[in-house]
């Protein structure tokens, strides 16, 4: 019987720090608003932290775990005791996070996911590095079910085979391409600035005479009543916006460089292991057969640089948990030339290169055209008040775009069943290809809206256990009704013919 272990003696510090971090932002808001309103009572809210910190302390002091032959046993609590048994076979993913502080103290935070829900089923905050290695070997070494095509790689080498690395240049490129979140931050910053929130903070940083505030409000006022803003003001705004955008892009690139520094994806037997991070080192291990869906994404910038991104979904991953400690894509950026190698490693039995895509119904173009024309009309409606007659010109532009969109979007739609998997491709600006194995399909559903019925079409949705974002699901629109119901029948037969493996 293996002995029980405790967490690292300094665990309680990290447990409390983890709790405090959640209160950092609200705390800052409290401090700044308190300063603004001259209130005296707000800081007392911080007292609420004490019991929360205490709970974390008790949890980390009482935490015991045991590595049995087939399962991990976790016990917590002094008064209300809880014992949790996690069979190794049910573990979806092991993730280890090591920040700078962790590294100084030679400890590591381990998260174990079983696919049961949003909460990490067992988060060990924190264990010594040696204990993590041992745990990983225990959990990953104890599984005996081999993958279909695992034999060709032979016995796993100790270090595993490197599938690909990302050098610094690629990381910067990834930051440049994927700066959508940064743009959001910029927009939020602009909004905060515009509406004069956090006045005391800005006052502190820029002095009381911060210029440019409430520019949009003034502009709108000027458009509605009175003279047009001067050329100088417009030029200033354009310059400010582009400077903000450039700055944000640079930050995004720097952030990608720091976050993904030294990205290595390895294959160890039937597992994929990604390791990355400059300050906070993250190591994720995904068993290959736990992959529910795989999505290849190519945006306009990806195509410009000949790159793509690959995401995989496992069961139990929390789609909201992105960012600092959240899950990164399997390949945040990859050269088109290396893509085939990666796909061959991840979904070896699906030949992506030889897929024959089948088109949607011929009527799809009209459906999409009508839909986007309606959207365009609705979008241009509010401008009637601002642009008056010029709205017709705007509407014309939008309708032209709608026509181009409908043509290219319906041309991009395609589906296929191929080598035991179902594939779906869509999008012309942001192209996505999503694939899932028959054995990972849960429910196959056929949807028929009134528009579908009138045009003899249907929509087919394939549900998987991967909590994929809406954009990465297999949800094929505009199928000819007969094709759809045939596919529905075939896929549900395939699903019931295979037994589901998490």
């Amino acid at each position, binding site marked *: 019987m293996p002995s029980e272990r405790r967490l690292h003696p300094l665990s309680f510090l990290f447990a409390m720090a983890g709790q405090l971090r959640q209160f950092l932002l609200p705390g800052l808001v409290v401090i700044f608003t308190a300063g603004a309103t001259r209130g005296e009572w707000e800081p007392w809210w911080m007292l609420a932290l004490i019991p929360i910190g205490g709970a974390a302390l008790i949890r980390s002091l009482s935490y015991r775990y045991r590595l049995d032959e087939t399962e991990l046993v976790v016990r917590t609590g002094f008064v209300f005791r809880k014992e949790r048994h996690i069979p190794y076979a049910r573990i979806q993913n092991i993730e280890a996070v090591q920040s700078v502080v962790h590294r100084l103290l030679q400890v590591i935070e381990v998260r174990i996911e079983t696919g049961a829900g949003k909460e990490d089923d067992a988060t060990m905050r924190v264990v010594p590095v040696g204990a993590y290695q041992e745990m990983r070997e225990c959990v990953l070494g104890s599984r005996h079910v081999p993958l279909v095509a695992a034999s060709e790689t032979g016995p796993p080498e100790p270090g595993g085979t490197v599938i690909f690395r990302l050098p610094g240049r690629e990381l910067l490129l990834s930051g440049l391409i994927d700066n959508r979140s940064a743009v959001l931050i910029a927009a939020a910053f602009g909004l905060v600035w515009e509406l004069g929130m956090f006045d005391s903070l800005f006052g502190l940083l820029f002095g009381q005479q911060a210029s440019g505030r409430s520019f949009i409000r003034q502009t709108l006022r000027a458009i509605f009543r009175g003279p047009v803003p001067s050329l100088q003001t417009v030029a200033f705004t354009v310059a400010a916006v582009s400077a903000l955008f450039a700055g944000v892009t640079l930050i995004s690139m720097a952030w990608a460089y720091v976050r993904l520094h030294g990205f290595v994806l390895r294959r160890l037997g039937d597992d994929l292991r990604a390791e990355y991070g400059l300050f906070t080192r993250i190591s994720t291990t995904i068993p290959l057969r736990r992959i529910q869906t795989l999505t290849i994404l190519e945006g306009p910038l990806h195509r410009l640089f000949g790159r793509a991104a690959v995401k995989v979904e496992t069961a139990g991953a929390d789609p909201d948990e992105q960012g600092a400690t959240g899950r990164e894509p399997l390949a945040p950026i990859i050269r088109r030339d290396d893509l085939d190698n990666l796909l061959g490693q991840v979904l070896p039995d699906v030949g992506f290169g030889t897929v024959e895509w089948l088109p949607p119904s011929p009527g799809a173009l009209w459906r999409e055209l009508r839909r986007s024309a309606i959207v365009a009309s609705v979008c241009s409606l509010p401008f009637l008040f601002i642009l008056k007659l010029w709205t017709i010109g705007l509407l014309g532009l939008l309708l032209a775009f709608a026509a181009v969109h409908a043509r290219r979007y319906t041309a991009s739609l395609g589906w296929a069943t191929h080598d035991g998997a179902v594939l779906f491709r869509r999008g012309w600006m942001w192209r996505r290809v999503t694939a899932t194995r028959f054995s990972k399909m*849960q429910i196959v559903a*056929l949807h028929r809206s009134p528009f579908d019925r009138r045009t003899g079409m249907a929509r087919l949705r394939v*549900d998987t256990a991967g*909590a*994929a974002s809406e954009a990465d699901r297999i949800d094929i629109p505009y199928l000819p009704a007969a094709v759809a119901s045939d596919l529905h029948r075939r896929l*549900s037969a395939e*699903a*019931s013919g295979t037994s*589901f*493996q998490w």
Partner: protein
Amino acid sequence: MSADLEAPPDVAPASVADGVRRSLDPRIIQLERIVGFIVTAGLSAGLALAVVLTWLAADSAWIPRLLAIAWPVITGLLAWHSYAWPAISYRHESYVVDHRGIEIRRGVVWQREITVPKSRVQHIDVSQGPVERRFGLGSLSIYTAGTDYAMVALRGITHERALRIRDHLLPKEAEDAV
């Protein structure tokens, strides 16, 4: 679908998995009407209360007047909906249980056909509310590991049948698919 529905040898003729498309138990119409009327009565009473309260509180008379006119209209519409809708939706709902799983077809305007393979069922709840108990009806909630369709419900079958479908869909032997 006849080609796919050849019963395998291990399914006895009296099994619930006969592969025949069935409508719900017709008593579901009456049950839904009763539930609908209860909801209507509740909403209508709440709205009536709002009329009285605004009458007492409002300075201008037109808001309570408007509400007083709206009240019978809304109540009437709700009552009509509670009466007519169950029969319409009954005509559009059916299910098939076969050796591979269950297929449920429903929806009047937005129609759906949902197939739950037997091999994907995680667990099943059979429940019976107070009104359902009077009619001897039950509801089946089938849970899968999916995301959009993590739970698929089938209302309006006899409780006894719900239990039989459950027994059919749940895995017999303790096979671990991992």
